[in-house]
C-alpha cells in the first residue's frame, strides 16, 4: 500500500532538550573517597562536630560494605562496575563570598541556566505560586519565598543552612527514617552529601504554596548526593515537588540521594517527583545512575504520606519511595509512572510497612516500556503483628510499546496479622496496531494516538500531581515518546 503507516517503533525515539552544559567556574575536591575528603567537605561547609562524626561513621560503614560486596546486586538492572574512587564528591559554583546572600549575588550565568530549564527563581514569578530551592551540582543556590514562608514559621532552606541555623532539628531527625546503615547508597550519601533541602512546617500550619527543589548535575565526573529532610509537625500540611535534569555526557554519572519525611500526629506530606535526568543516547551511552533512597515515617496517629513520582529520565533508576506506618490510622500512598525507552532500565516501586492499627496503604504503579527499555516494579507490603485492621490495595499496570522492551513485576507480601486485608492486581497490555489504526481512521495522527493512550494509562497517577505539574508531566511523557512522526 502506498500510504505506509508509521510504526510505533519509529515513534519512540527521543530528543533530550536539557542536555546543555553551563560554563561556570567551580570549586571541587579531588576525585576519590577517604576520610580526608569527608573532613574537607565538612570543613568547607563549616559544620558542627556532630555532623562530621555522623559523616565519618557513615563512611566507615560504607567502606566496610564496599570491601564486602560493594553495592547490592538484587535489582533487575545491569551495568558495569562503578569505580567509586574516580568520582568527584563535591563541586560548587565559585562565588565571591562563601554563599550568596540573595539572588543578586548569584552568578547570572547560573540564573540563565535555570531560566532555560523553566525554573522561576525570581520572586516576580509569584503567580506560579511555587517556592523553589535550586541545587546546582552540590550546593543549594537560592531559595525563593523564604521570607514569606518564615512569617508562618515555615523553615524552607538548603540543608547546609539548616545545619547552621537549626542544628537541634537536624540532629533530632537526620537519619531517623533512613539511618546510614540502611543500605550501601544511603551510607555513601550520608558520608558525602553536600546539600539538599530542609523543610519544617510547625504545628497546625498549612503550607500555602507548593515547595519545590530543582536539582541539576552540571560538572563532569561529578556525583550528586543531596539529602532532603521534611518534617511536618502536628496537624501540619505540606506539598513538595522535586524536578531533575542533567547535561548530555558520554559517561555515566552517579546520583545517590536520600529523602527522609517525618509526619507527626494528623500531619500530611505530599511528595511529588518529576525525574528527567539525562537518560543516555539511543545506543545506551551515558546517562545518570539514579540510585535513591526515599522513605517517609508516619510517626503520629492519623498522619499521611503520599508519594507521587513520574520517572522518565536516567539510564538506570533504582528507587523505592516507602512509608513506615507507625501511627494508628496513618495512611501511605504511592503513585508512580515510570517510563523506559531506548536502553533505559528502571527497577522501582515501594515498601509499605504497616505497624500501627487500622493503617491503610494504596499503591498505583504504571510502567511504560518502549524501545529496548526494561521496566521492573518491585514492591513490598508488610503487615506486622501489631497492625490490627490494616489494609492495602496494590495495582501494577504495564504498557508495552513495541516488542523489544520488557516489563517485570515482583510483589512481596508479608502478612502477620489475620485481620489485615491485602489486595493486589496486575495487568500487562500492549498498544496494538489495531488501536492506532482506530485513532487514525478517526483523523488523529499516530503520535496523538500514542500520547492519548499513554496519558489515559497514567491518568490515575497524574491526577495526584499538583495541577501545573500534571500538565508538565503530560508534556514530558509526550517529549519522551516523541520521534520522527510529522
Amino acid at each position, binding site marked *: 500500500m502506498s500510504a505506509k503507516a508509521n510504526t510505533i517503533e519509529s515513534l519512540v525515539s527521543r530528543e533530550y532538550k536539557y542536555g546543555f552544559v553551563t560554563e561556570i567556574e567551580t570549586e571541587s575536591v579531588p576525585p576519590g573517597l577517604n576520610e580526608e575528603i569527608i573532613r574537607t567537605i565538612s570543613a568547607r561547609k563549616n559544620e558542627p562536630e556532630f555532623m562530621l562524626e555522623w559523616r565519618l561513621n557513615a563512611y566507615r560503614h560504607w567502606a566496610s560494605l564496599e570491601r564486602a560486596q560493594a553495592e547490592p546486586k538484587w535489582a533487575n538492572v545491569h551495568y558495569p562496575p562503578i569505580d567509586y574512587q574516580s568520582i568527584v564528591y563535591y563541586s560548587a559554583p565559585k562565588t565571591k563570598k562563601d554563599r550568596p546572600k540573595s539572588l543578586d549575588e548569584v552568578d547570572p550565568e547560573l540564573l540563565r541556566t535555570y531560566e532555560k530549564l523553566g525554573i522561576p527563581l525570581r520572586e516576580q514569578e509569584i503567580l506560579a505560586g511555587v517556592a523553589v530551592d535550586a541545587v546546582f551540582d552540590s550546593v543549594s543556590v537560592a531559595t525563593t519565598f523564604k521570607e514569606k514562608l518564615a512569617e508562618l514559621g515555615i523553615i524552607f532552606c538548603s540543608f547546609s543552612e539548616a545545619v547552621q541555623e537549626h542544628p537541634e532539628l537536624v540532629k533530632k531527625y537526620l537519619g531517623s527514617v533512613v539511618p546510614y546503615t540502611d543500605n550501601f547508597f544511603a551510607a555513601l550519601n550520608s558520608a558525602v552529601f553536600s546539600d539538599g533541602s530542609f523543610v519544617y512546617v510547625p504545628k497546625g500550619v498549612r503550607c500555602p504554596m507548593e515547595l519545590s527543589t530543582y536539582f541539576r548535575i552540571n560538572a563532569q565526573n561529578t556525583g550528586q548526593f543531596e539529602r532532603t529532610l521534611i518534617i511536618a509537625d502536628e496537624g501540619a500540611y505540606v506539598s513538595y515537588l522535586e524536578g531533575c535534569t542533567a547535561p548530555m555526557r558520554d559517561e555515566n554519572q552517579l546520583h545517590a540521594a536520600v529523602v527522609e519525611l517525618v509526619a507527626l500526629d494528623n500531619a500530611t506530606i505530599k511528595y511529588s517527583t518529576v525525574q528527567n535526568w539525562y537518560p543516555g543516547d539511543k545506543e545506551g551511552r551515558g546517562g545518570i545512575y539514579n540510585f535513591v533512597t526515599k522513605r517517609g515515617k508516619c510517626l503520629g496517629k492519623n498522619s499521611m504520606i503520599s508519594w507521587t513520582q513520574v520517572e522518565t529520565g536516567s539510564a538506570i533508576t533504582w528507587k523505592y519511595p516507602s512509608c513506615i506506618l507507625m501511627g494508628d490510622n496513618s495512611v501511605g500512598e504511592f503513585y508512580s509512572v515510570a517510563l523506559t525507552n531506548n536502553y533505559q532500565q528502571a527497577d522501582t516501586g515501594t515498601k509499605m510497612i504497616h505497624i500501627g492499627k487500622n493503617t491503610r496503604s494504596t499503591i498505583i504503579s504504571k510502567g511504560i516500556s518502549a524501545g529496548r527499555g526494561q521496566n521492573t516494579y518491585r514492591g513490598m507490603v508488610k503487615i506486622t503483628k501489631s497492625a490490627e485492621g490494616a489494609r492495602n490495595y496494590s495495582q501494577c499496570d504495564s504498557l508495552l510499546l513495541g516488542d523489544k522492551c520488557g516489563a517485570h513485576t515482583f510483589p512481596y507480601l508479608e502478612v502477620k496479622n489475620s485481620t489485615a486485608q491485602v489486595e493486589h492486581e496486575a495487568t500487562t497490555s500492549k498498544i496494538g496496531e489495531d488501536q492506532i489504526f482506530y485513532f487514525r*481512521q478517526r483523523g488523529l495522527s499516530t503520535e496523538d494516538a500514542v500520547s492519548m493512550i499513554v*496519558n*489515559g494509562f497514567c491518568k490515575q497517577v497524574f491526577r495526584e500531581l499538583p495541577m501545573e505539574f500534571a500538565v508538565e508531566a503530560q508534556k514530558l511523557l509526550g517529549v519522551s515518546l516523541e520521534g520522527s512522526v510529522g
Partner: protein
Amino acid sequence: MLEIRNLHANVDGNEILRGIDLKVNAGEVHAIMGPNGSGKSTLAHVLAGRDGYEVTAGEVIYEGKDLLAMPPEDRAREGVFLAFQYPVEIPGVSNMYFLRAALNAVRKHRGLDEIDAMDFLKMVREKMKLLDMDNTMMNRAVNEGFSGGEKKRNEIFQMAVLEPRLAILDETDSGLDIDALKIVAGGINALRSPDRAIILVTHYQRLLNYVVPDFVHVLSDGRIVKSGGKELALELEQKGYGWIEASAQPVRGVSS
C-alpha cells in the same frame, strides 16, 4: 464521489480482491453482500488504508483525488469514515475526549476553528438522542466494557458527530438484536443525505429491510459478480449465495 477501478489487493501474499470496479455517487446507498471470505471486509479496510493490505493493481479516486496515496488519517480528515466490524477498546481515554479530538482534527484539516467545549457538548447531546445513547457512555473509556450492541451504536454515533462524506459500514448489523438493529438503522437513515454516500457491507439481508439501498452488489471470490437494485438482496435471501456463484458470469460493476 468514489470510483474504484480494477482494484487488486493481497493479504499475507494471498490475492483477496481480484479486480473490483465500483462507482458510487453522492446521495447513494450501496450494499455490498457476499459469502464469508468473498473479500467484503478486505475492501472496506483497503479503502480506509489499514496496514497489511497490499494493493497490487488498480486505483481508487475519491473526490478527484488518489485515495490510496493518502495515509489513513488524511482519508478520515477528507471525509472517509469506517464503522468497524470489531471496534477496539481504548482504556483510559474517554469517549467524549476521543471524539472531540477526532472532530477537531477533521475541522483543523478543513481550516475551521476548534469547536469549544460548550458547543461540542450541545451537539453531542443532540446526536446521542438519535441513537438513544445513555449519557454515561460519553464518560466511559472508548468501547471499554461496552456490549457488542453498544459498540456498534457507538460507531454510528461517531459517524453522526464526524459527518463524513463517505461512510463505509462494515457488518454493522452483526451481533445486534432486533431492537438494537432498529435503533442503528434509524441512525443510519437519519444520516442519509444528498451529499453523503454510504456503503453497507453485510452478509445478511436483514439490515436492508430497514436501510433500503439504492444498489446491491454481490461479491464473490474477490470480484463483483452481480449488481442490481434492492430486490437483488431479497432474491439472495431466498436462493442463497450458491445460486449466484454457480450461475453468474463476472460483470463489470454498475454505473449509475
